[in-house]
């Protein structure tokens, strides 16, 4: 995976900020995507290109359990979120959707807004092409990688139910 980094250095970016509740009367990814991050960055959608990444501080995705947050980001073109750490429910929601949530302490400080990144999930490696640096992260646990490979929790369950 290769794309540009959109860095939000703040800690505790919550799911109300990722997708405000006033849009939760809808669950369609394309429509949610139109409002992703709008309460903290009105220019977000203008900047993001398909395949890009969000990089953020501690406890990304805290607060409400709304999976709409994952869908809004994915719908907007984001392919993975890299954060110093993740809130629990958001992390589950990512894995269950087959959407990589990469825990990489220090990422929000090391990566600059706009840096070009290449991510190797299996190797647990982020290559920062702009800064010519390689950062290791703890690879996702086996069960999470299996789930992402299977296409998410529902795809896995469907297989088991057969």
């Amino acid at each position: 995976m290769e794309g540009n980094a959109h860095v939000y250095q703040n800690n505790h970016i919550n799911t109300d900020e990722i997708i405000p509740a006033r849009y939760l009367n809808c669950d369609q990814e394309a429509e949610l995507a139109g409002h992703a991050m709008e309460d903290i960055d009105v220019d977000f959608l203008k900047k993001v290109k398909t395949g890009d990444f969000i990089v953020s501080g501690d406890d990304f995705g805290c607060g409400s359990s709304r999976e709409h947050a994952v869908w809004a980001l994915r719908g907007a073109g984001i392919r993975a979120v890299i954060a110093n750490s993740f809130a629990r429910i958001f992390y589950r929601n990512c894995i269950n959707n087959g959407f990589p949530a990469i825990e990489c302490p220090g990422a929000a400080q090391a990566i600059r807004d706009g840096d070009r990144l290449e991510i190797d999930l299996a190797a647990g490696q982020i290559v920062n092409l702009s800064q010519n640096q390689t950062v290791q992260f703890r690879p996702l646990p086996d069960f999470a990688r299996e789930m992402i490979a299977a296409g998410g929790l529902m795809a896995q369950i469907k297989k088991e139910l057969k």
Partner: protein
Amino acid sequence: MGATITEKILAVHSAREKVTPGDLVNCEIDTIMCHDVTTTPAIDMLEKYGIKDVCDPERIVIMPDHFVPNKDIKSAEMVAKIRRWAKAQNIRQFFDLGRHGVCHALLPEQGFVTPGKTIICGDSHTCTHGALGAFSTGVGSTDLAATLATGKLWFKVPESQRFIVSGHLPEGVYAKDIILQIIGQIGVDGALYKAMEFCGEVIDELSVEGRMTICNMAIEAGGKSGVINPDAKTLEYVRTRTDTKFTVYRSDADAQYAQTFEINVSDLEPVVAFPHLPGNVKPVRLAAGIPVDQAYLGSCTNGRIEDLRVAAQILKGRVVAVGTRMIVVPATTEIWKQANREGLLDIFMAAGATVSTPTCGACLGGHMGILAAGERCISSTNRNFVGRMGSPKSEVYLASPATVAASAMAGKIADPRQYL
């Protein structure tokens, strides 16, 4: 080595003799609660994957609450879809308008929460139900769909943190102040991935409602669950609501905790959480005098009968300040009726507040009291994130029902102790 209540419940539900923090378990779920916002996507997922039947309709309880009564056409369509689905799946336990309420207040009230159970809901405040000695946690819509299909869900067994709350709770200081104080102390990710176990003489003294207020906000510290070992009060609360059988689990004396915190509340003052994080907690005197446009009393944290009683005690014979709007939202239909019988609703209306039907409403910025840019609200809810109750340029201060009522009268944030 002993086990915590959380480890015991997770072990039994995953058919293991014992579990250790970090173990991945596939866990039988006893009660699956569904509300309006996160359930429709789960229904879509079941359809998309061709899963025709839910695991067991008797385990499912449906309680639409967020945008209830329907706030617009889209939210009306969501609940209409859930109604059709519930009918097709023979789900009897459906609390539609007229029996409705905020799900985390309604579920225990209606006897669905018993000690030792496992409970999930597509809502982060599902941690509330640990107050009765259950393992209860919030999940997303995919987890919800998976559980509806299989009756099971994967978990990593959490480490537990123990919070020993001791001393004597001063007058004018409540369960809400205790939990805000704890979140202020450990931070909004101080309990990340952990089970927060609350104990000590102050917790023993609290009513079951007060305990729910405490466990409700475990998620605001990042916790996976909040839990309190059941005692005689728990059993009495449960016995008056259901005759189903259950098993009581309690933490062993030699259980292992990742951390133990000792909190003495004898000198605790009423506190408020400043915008925009529940962890920005300061004594109310440091906020005193900040003008408020709105005072909101309600939600799964503090919309129960006790909360309404405390607020009514302060507002009785007094009036809400000119220029301040007060909205009272009893959390469930039964609470609304009880408050009506006790004359509390009359007290609120006479004071110039307004009383709404039960709903999540403005707690999440849905409807029924949205804030404009530049407006400020003192609220008995649980989150004060940017834009949580309306405009991204509005502000929310979190506090106890007493502080909300006192501030409504004063038109600015006020210490409730002067009015008791």
